C-alpha cells in the first residue's frame, strides 16, 4: 500500500465524522433527557407532592399546575399561589428557610420567579396536556416520579419515537398508576380513564372505587391505600398517531 492511498483515508474519515454529526443531530437520538438544572429557588417537590408517609403533604400536581386538565399548557403557579401558604410557613430547617427566603424576596420585589424550563417540545409539536390528563394518563408516566425528585429533571426523552410508542402500543392505566409510584393498584374492575366530567371521577379516575385515588384527590389518604394486586382487565388505550394530530 502506498503513502498516497493512506492519505485518501482522510476525506473518507472526515465524511464519516460529518455524517455522524448530521445523523446524531437529526436522527432524534439527541435529547435533553436527564436535564435538571439548578433552579433559582430550589423547590422541593417531595415536601409538597410527596406522600404523607414519606414526609410530604400529598398535594395533587394540579393544585399548582392547574391548567393541566384544561389547557394545552400545564401552567406554572403564580407567585401568590406560593405565598398563599408561605406568608405564614417560613420553613423549619435552614435549607427551607433559605429557599423560602428567596421566594419571599421575589414576592416582595413583585417579581416572578424565573424558573428554568426543563420540558420543551419543539414549536412544531402541539402537545395537549388536557387530552392526556383527562384521559387518565398519570403525570408521572411522562415526567417521572417528580414527587420524589429533589431536583426535577427531564425523565423521558420526549422524542417522537417515545410519543408514538405509547400512541401505537397504547397506555395501560395500571402501568400508569405504577409509574406514578402510588402505593395502590387499580382494582380488577377498573376500566381505564373515564371521560372527563363523568360524575364521580377526577381526571378520568373514579374517586369512588377503593384504592383509586391518588394522594390528595378527594378521599382521605387512609382509604386511598390499598393492597389489592388484582390485574386490571382494561384494554390498553391507543391514541391517534396521525402526523397532523400534533404537527400543524
Amino acid at each position, binding site marked *: *500500500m502506498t*503513502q498516497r492511498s*493512506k*492519505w485518501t*483515508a*482522510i476525506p473518507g*474519515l*472526515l465524511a464519516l*465524522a*460529518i455524517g455522524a*454529526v448530521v445523523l*446524531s*443531530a437529526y436522527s432524534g437520538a*439527541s*435529547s*435533553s433527557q436527564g*436535564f435538571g*438544572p439548578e433552579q433559582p429557588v430550589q423547590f422541593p417537590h417531595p415536601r409538597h407532592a410527596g406522600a404523607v408517609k414519606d414526609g410530604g403533604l400529598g398535594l395533587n400536581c394540579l393544585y399548582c399546575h*392547574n*391548567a393541566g386538565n384544561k*389547557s*394545552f*399548557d400545564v*401552567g*406554572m*403557579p*403564580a*407567585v*401568590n*399561589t406560593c405565598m398563599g401558604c408561605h406568608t405564614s410557613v417560613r420553613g423549619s430547617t435552614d435549607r427551607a428557610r433559605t429557599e423560602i427566603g428567596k421566594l419571599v424576596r421575589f*414576592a416582595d420585589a*413583585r*417579581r*416572578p*420567579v*424565573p*424558573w*428554568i*424550563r*426543563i420540558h*420543551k417540545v*419543539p414549536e*412544531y409539536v*402541539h402537545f395537549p396536556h388536557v*387530552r392526556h390528563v*383527562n384521559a387518565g394518563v398519570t403525570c408521572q408516566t411522562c415526567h417521572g416520579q417528580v414527587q420524589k425528585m429533589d431536583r426535577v429533571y*427531564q425523565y423521558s426523552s*420526549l422524542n417522537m419515537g417515545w410519543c408514538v410508542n405509547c400512541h401505537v402500543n397504547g397506555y395501560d392505566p395500571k402501568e400508569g398508576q405504577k409509574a406514578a409510584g402510588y402505593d395502590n393498584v387499580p382494582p380488577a374492575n377498573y376500566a381505564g380513564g373515564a371521560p*372527563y*366530567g*363523568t360524575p364521580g371521577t377526577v381526571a378520568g379516575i373514579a374517586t369512588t372505587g377503593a384504592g383509586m385515588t391518588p394522594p390528595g384527590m378527594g378521599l382521605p389518604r387512609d382509604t386511598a391505600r390499598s393492597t389489592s394486586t388484582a390485574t386490571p382487565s382494561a384494554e390498553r388505550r*391507543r*391514541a*391517534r*398517531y*396521525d*402526523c*397532523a394530530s400534533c*404537527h*400543524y
Partner: protein
Amino acid sequence: MSNDSGSAGVKRRDFLKVLGAAGATASTVGCTSEKVGKLIPYLVHPDETVAGVSTYYATTCRECAASCGIIAETRDGRTTKLEGNPEHPLNRGALCARGQAAVQGLYNPDRFRGPMVKQNGAWRAVSWDDALTLLSQKLGEARSRGGAGNAIFLNQHETGSFPGFLDAWLGGFGMRPHLSVDFEADAAAIEANRRTYGVAWPRLSFADAKLIVSFGADFLETWGMSVPQQLDFADARAKAEGAPRFVYIGPRRSLTGLNADQWIACKPGTELVIANALRGSGSVADAARQSGVAEATLARLQQELAAAKPALVLAGARGANALDLALAVAALNQTGGAVGTTIRPAEGSTAFEGIARFGEVADAVERMRAGQVPIAFVRGVNPAYVLPASAKFADAFAKVPFKVSFSLYPDETTELCDLVLPDLHSLESWGDAEAGRGTVSLQQPAMDPVFAGTRATADVLIQLAQKDPANAARYPAKDYRGWLMGRFPGGTAAFTATLQKGIGAGAVAPRTAAASAAPTARAVPAIDQTSGDFYLVAYPSPVLGGDGRGANKPWLQELPDPVSKVLWSSWVEIHPETANRLGIERGDIVEVATAAGKVRAPAYLYLGIRPDTLGVALGQGHGAAAKLDDYDGKHNDNVPTQWGYGRYARNIGVRAQDLLGVGTDGAGGFALVSTKATLTKTGDHDTLVSTEGSARQHGRGIAQALLVTELGATREAPGAENANALAPQGSKNQESGSGASHGEGAGGKGEGNRGEHHEDIPGEPPNEFRPGLRSPVAADAQGVLGAPTAENHGKDKGLYATNHWAGMANRRWAMTIDLARCTGCSACVTACYAENNIPTVGAPWQNATVFAVAKPGFNITRGREMNWLRLERYFEGADDGKFTEDFESRFVPMLCQHCGNAPCEPVCPVYATYHAPDGLNVQVYNRCVGTRYCSNNCPYKVRYFNWFGYGEEDRKQYAFPEPLNWQLNPDVTVRTKGVMEKCTFCVQRIREAETRAKSEGRTLVADEFTTACSQACPSRAIVFGDAADPTWTVSKQVEDRRAYHVFEELNTYTAVVYLKKVNHPGPATPAGA
C-alpha cells in the same frame, strides 16, 4: 495496513478527537431544549384566565367611523386575533381587512414608547410628569394671553362619549369645541341625507330593493359602513328569487362597480345630469350627450328604474357637484317609494353625526396660517399627509407656537409638532361608541398596554384638568374609565354586565358642540374641460383607507388591491385602448400632472376605466421626502430617527393628493374628482408589484357563472307585482317549477352557519361531491382498501380503521365558497394572515442578502408571496382591448383544495405532505426538506415556499419585528426557512374544537366552529364543516345545483366546492329563456 498507521495522516487518537468534537456539535444543534428557556409565572394569577387558553373580550373596532363590534382573542395577556362580535347589530360577526389589521396597529414596531418633546429641532424623550407640566404651562400661557379661544383640536372622528368629554374639557380651558375629522366620509351624501331624511346615515336595506343603482357610491369599500352594507348586499344578491339587479354608474369600476351586473361609464362629473334625466328633470338625449353614454342605455335604465319599485339609488361620486348629485338621487328615492323600504331613516346609524367637513379643517388651517392659533392638538388624524400639497399645511402649522400630538405612531403631522403624548391603542383603552340609536357598544382594554410609557389621551386630559385649579372639581373620577362608568345608565353594575356582551341598550350623551361656522366655500368649478387630456379620478384605497391610515400595517400593504391586485406600491389606472394608443405597457412609469402637482407611478392597464380617465388611489406615498436608506427592520429606539409613517409605509408609492387642488363640494367635502390631468410616458419601466397572473381564465373554468334565468327560479322581471322577495324559506322548494328532486339533506333548512341562511337552488347538483369523500386516495387513507365488492373489503383497515376510537376517519372536512355572495373584498385574506402567522414578504429590506434590491414588494415580483388564501379576479368579455362597458368580473378565493386525490402528495419524497384520515391534505413542516416538487405538481398553485427565514428574528427578512411577534398565534407553528406551507383548513381550530368537545365528554356539534376566513367573511360566502355529517351546513351546500369543483377534469376530488356566480342580465337580454 495497521503497520502503516504510525505514519498515516490520521491517527486513531486524532480520529477520536474529531468524533468528540462532532459529538459536542451535535449536542448543541439537536432540536431539544439545550437552549435554556425560562418559565415566567404570573405574580398574581388573574381569576378568569387559564394558561394557554384564550380569553375573549368584547370591544369595539375604531379603525373607521362605523365602530363594529369585535371580540379580541387574548392568550396569556396578549391579544392575538380580532373577530367580529356575532351579537353586534352592525357587523354580526364579520370583520373587514382593516378591522382585522387593528392588531398590527397595536403591536406596531414603530409605536412611540413614551412622551417626547422637541427642543431646538431635536426630539428628546421626557417623563410624563415633565411633559404634562410643560403642557399645563403652555395651556396657562395661551389662556392668560386670551388666545385660548383660537386653539384647535383635530380629533379622529368617533362616536360615543369621548367627543362630548373632549368638548367639555376644551371648554374648561376656554377653548372651542374640537373638529371631528374623517377625511374618508362622504360629506355630500351625509348632508343630503340630513336634508332629505333628517339623519346622517339611514339604514340601506339592499334586500328590499328590486334594483340597486349606484352613482359612484362604493358601498362595499369606503363609502359608509362597508361591513354592514356588504352583509346586506350579499344577502340580497344570494336570494333565490327576487335578487336585485345592480347597476353602477361612474367613470371607473371600483370593487363595488365590479360587483355590478351593468356598468354605465359616464364622464366624471356627469353623474348629476344622468340622475336628473332619470328623474325626468332633463332629457335623456341631453344627458347621454354630456355623459358620453349611449342614449339607449340611459333610456333602458330609466324604464327599469320606473318599473322597479322600490329601488335603491345611491350617490357617492366625489366631484364638485357631489351635493347636487346626492340631492337629486335623494329625490329619485323619494319619488320611487324607497324611503321606509330600502332607505330606513328610523333605523339609521349615528356613526357619521358630527363630522367636521373638509372645508372646516381647511378654514382651521387658514387660521393657523394667519398666526391666530396659539396651541394646536392633533389626535388620530394626519392632516400633513391627507391635505393636498396645495393646502400648504406644513407652512400654516409652523405658525402655531405650540403643537401637541397624541399620535401612537410617528407620522407626517407628529413630526411637525412640539410635544408627543402617545395615546393608547383602542385595544388597550376604555371607550364607547354608538352602534345605532339607543345602542351602546363598549370599548374595553383587551390587554395591558404594550408600552408602559403610553397613556390614554382621555386619562391625560383628566390628569391635566385635575392639575388645574379651575377644572379640578369637575373631574372627580380618577380616570376615564371611572368617568364612563359614572355616567353609564345603570351605573357600575350595568356597565360590567354590558361589557360581557360588548353591546347594550342605552344612549350616549350627544355631543353638544356649538354649531360650527359654515366653512368658507371653496367650490371648484365644474371640471375644466381644456386643461388636460384626461379626467383624473382619485379614490380612497379600499385597503389602506383614503387617509392612508393602514399604510404602516404590513398585512394591509401585502393585501392586493381588490381591483388591480397591486400591492406595496401605487399605480395609475389606464384603459388598455388608451395605453395602446400612447404606447404604454403595464409597468411603464408614467407621469400624471395637474395644475396642482405631478406624480410618477407605474401604469396598470384596467378595463374598468373610461379611456379618457385616469385612476389613482389615495393612501400611499408616506414620507416620500425622507431619504431612502437601507433599513434593517430592527430599529427600536424610543425616539425615531426617521419619520414618515413608520417603516412599512415609508417611501412606498406616491401621494395622489398632490394632484388635487383644495376644492370642496357644496357640502364642504373634499372634491376628489375635480381636475383634468396630462399623462406622459417617462420611458422608465418597472415590474408592477402584483399578484395577478392572468386576468383571463383561458377557458379553464376556474370561476364559473350562470344566468339567473338558468337557475329555474323565477326571478321576476323588474316591476312584476307582488313578487314577494321575502317569501318564507320553507315554501321556496315547492315553488320552483323545475320539479327537480333534492338530494338527501338538501331540503328546507332552518339552521345555517351562525344564523346566516344559505338558500339552496332547486335542482340536481351537477357534480357528485360524495365520491370526493370516498376518493381512491381518501379511501386509502381511511383504511378502506379494495373495491367494495372485494372479499377483503373493509377488513384490511391499515393504520386508520374507520371504527378506530379516535374517529378521525369518520370526518371529511370541506368548504363551500358561494361566488354569488363573494364580493372580492379580501377580508378573508387578512383573516388568514392573522390566524396562521403568515409572514409578509414585501418590505424593502426583506429581499435576498446577495444582490439585494431594496424595492418594496421585490419578493412579490419574484413570486414569493405567501398568501395561503388569495383572491383571484378574472374578467370575462372585452377581449379585444377596445373599450366596452360590457364586461364581467368574477372573484374566486383560491386556497388549498384539500384534494381527495392530491397531486402534491405522491411527489413528496419525504412524506411531508400526505392525506390525513379526516380529509385534510396535511403539510408536516418538520418533515419538509423543501424540494418544492409538491408546488410544481399543484394545479391550483396554492403552496408557498419560505425562501427566507421570515420567522427567524436574527435574519433581516424577519417578518415579525418586536412587538409584532406578540400577535403570533401560539397554536400555529412559525415556519422556518426552506419549508413549504399552505392552507391547513385551520387545523389548529379543528384540533382545538375536538379537544374542547372531548373535555366536555361529547362529540362535535354541527357548525360549532369554523375557519378564520369563513368567520371573517362579510358576505358569508365561505362555509366550512364536516361534509360527511349531514347536520353540518356545508354538507347541504355541496348538494347545491350550482356546485362545481375547480379543475374537476383532473380527478382531484377537491374538498373545496365552489357555487357558481349568478349573473343578472338586463331587461334587454331575453330574460325568460
